[in-house]
């Protein structure tokens, strides 16, 4: 299976700019958390467009590159004991890598979830086998798609706090990222295990 079909099979979300390839953009992405890379990007090869050897080496050592991580604030939420975490996972390596686990001290329980449409309704369920990041591609965890479900929160999460998230991957690497907490309006699924009852 090619990288592209992995990506499509997973329904990975892409962001504007993902097709652009330049060392500048890739370096900037690493430095400032840009969410530019996307599904279907081939391994960088083109002349004048490949990342510098230094950047590539860092990627190889670090495994998946995590950018744009954030957590939805729970203050004022209908379900303040749970929320979602979102981010972009980019894999510049030659082999697929799976996000197998996400942990944070602010939640006593975490799951990797995805949203899908069942009988015309958005429903959420746990992903079996983790979230696959294809070689040379990326996956976006975002509202309405893949996300890290944070449950049994130890306390409410107000906007502007920062939550440490420790991500463990199938290649044996793990890393801790700092995710700012932000307000978010969209209510699809409510990021609760069962859809909220309709009024």
């Amino acid at each position: 299976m090619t990288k592209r079909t992995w990506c499509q099979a997973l329904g990975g979300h892409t962001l504007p700019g993902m097709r652009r390839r330049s060392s500048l953009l890739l370096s900037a992405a690493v430095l400032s958390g840009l969410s530019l890379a996307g599904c279907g990007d081939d391994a960088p090869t083109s002349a004048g467009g490949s990342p510098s050897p230094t950047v590539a080496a860092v990627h190889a050592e670090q495994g998946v590159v995590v950018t744009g991580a954030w957590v939805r604030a729970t203050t004022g939420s209908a379900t303040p004991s749970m929320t979602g975490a979102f981010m972009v996972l980019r894999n510049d390596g030659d082999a697929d890598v799976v996000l197998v686990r996400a942990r944070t001290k602010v939640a006593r329980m975490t799951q990797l979830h995805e949203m899908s449409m069942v009988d015309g309704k958005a429903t959420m369920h746990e992903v079996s086998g983790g979230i696959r990041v294809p070689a040379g591609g990326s996956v976006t965890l975002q509202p309405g798609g893949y996300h890290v479900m944070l449950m049994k929160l130890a306390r409410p999460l107000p906007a502007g706090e920062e939550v440490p998230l420790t991500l463990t991957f199938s290649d044996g690497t793990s890393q801790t990222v700092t995710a700012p907490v932000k307000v978010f309006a969209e209510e699809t699924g409510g990021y609760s295990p069962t859809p909220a009852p309709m009024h």
Partner: protein
Amino acid sequence: MSSRRQFLGYLATAGAAATSGALGGRASATTEAPAAQPAVRSFSPHGEHQAGVLSAGQAVLHAVALDLLPGTDRAALGRLLRVWTGDVEALMTGRGPLGDPTPELAEGGNGLTVTVALGHGAFALPGLAERKPAGLSAVPPMRHDRLEPRWSGGDLLLLVAADEATSVDHAVRRLLRDAEPFARLRWRQRGSWRGTDAHGRTVTGRNLMGQVDGTGNPPPGALRDQTVWATSPSWFEGGTTVVVRRIRMDLDDWDRLTRDEQEAALGRRLASGAPLHGSQERDPVDLRRLPPGSHVAVAHPSANGFRRIFRKGVNWTDERLAADGPVVESGLLFLSFQADVARQFVPVQQHLDRADALNRWTTATGSAEFAVLPGLQPGRWLGQGLIGP
């Protein structure tokens, strides 16, 4: 007119070489340079100072004042500033802020700046009062003021500017949305400026009276730095203060004057912006050769003990609905940047209030003062030096 536009358009598409710009405002179509390509530019969110203070020539500016919600304490203000820092970094580098459902509206190359400032109310929070910059003080009432609460005050200020309006609308919406747990909109004033001429060359620009407005700003260099940037307290180094004045203009009455009468009130030529005794916009001003009470004769640093400000203006037009239909109001949103409000802005404004001939046509209907936070360093957040850690 349309044939002239078509001709200029033809020149631009044909890529004709520039001929001569020496004729300035009196150039005819046959000698005009081709239109400049639309500028694609961006400002860094990082630096010693926030870029939006000195950024020049942006076509659109929104001044957005917010009030803190009752529950917003010092720690919560810190959280808001962290959120806004992420938003500012994203927006100024052409990305949607985290959680933006419409990140495509944040596409860069638009010369966007977001400038964050704190008003008196923010410094009234427990733990911040003793850290308030001495340079941030209230502007005392002026005789000609007709201030409305609707356009005055505010605990926080965002100045959002860009080379086009859609990006500004989007940026302000995201910033207000992300501020919702902490603060709510108090007033917003939208304005526009034309900082280029017909050939795309940078010019000072004009207010709605037709006046070339801003000639007297200190040029880049030590004088401007000393005018604008605060040096104390230490957390505020690299910051500045801004006075926002919403000035209503009586354009209907202004239009009744002859050009001579208008120029006598301004002290400058309308066409060139030159002082009445000179011929070029930047000719030195000689107070003895200007009509007493003309605007430049009262506002010029040499008439004010060489107190200086760095000013920006944007033009605005609002309509409000009266019983018999819409009533149009126009004017200038005046932004005065200085290290110290009381030592620089206030004496100049008091002098203008006493003597400026333009007082007959200009009335301040809003006024507010804010401390513009020092520039942002990568990995830190705006206001971190104030609120910590």
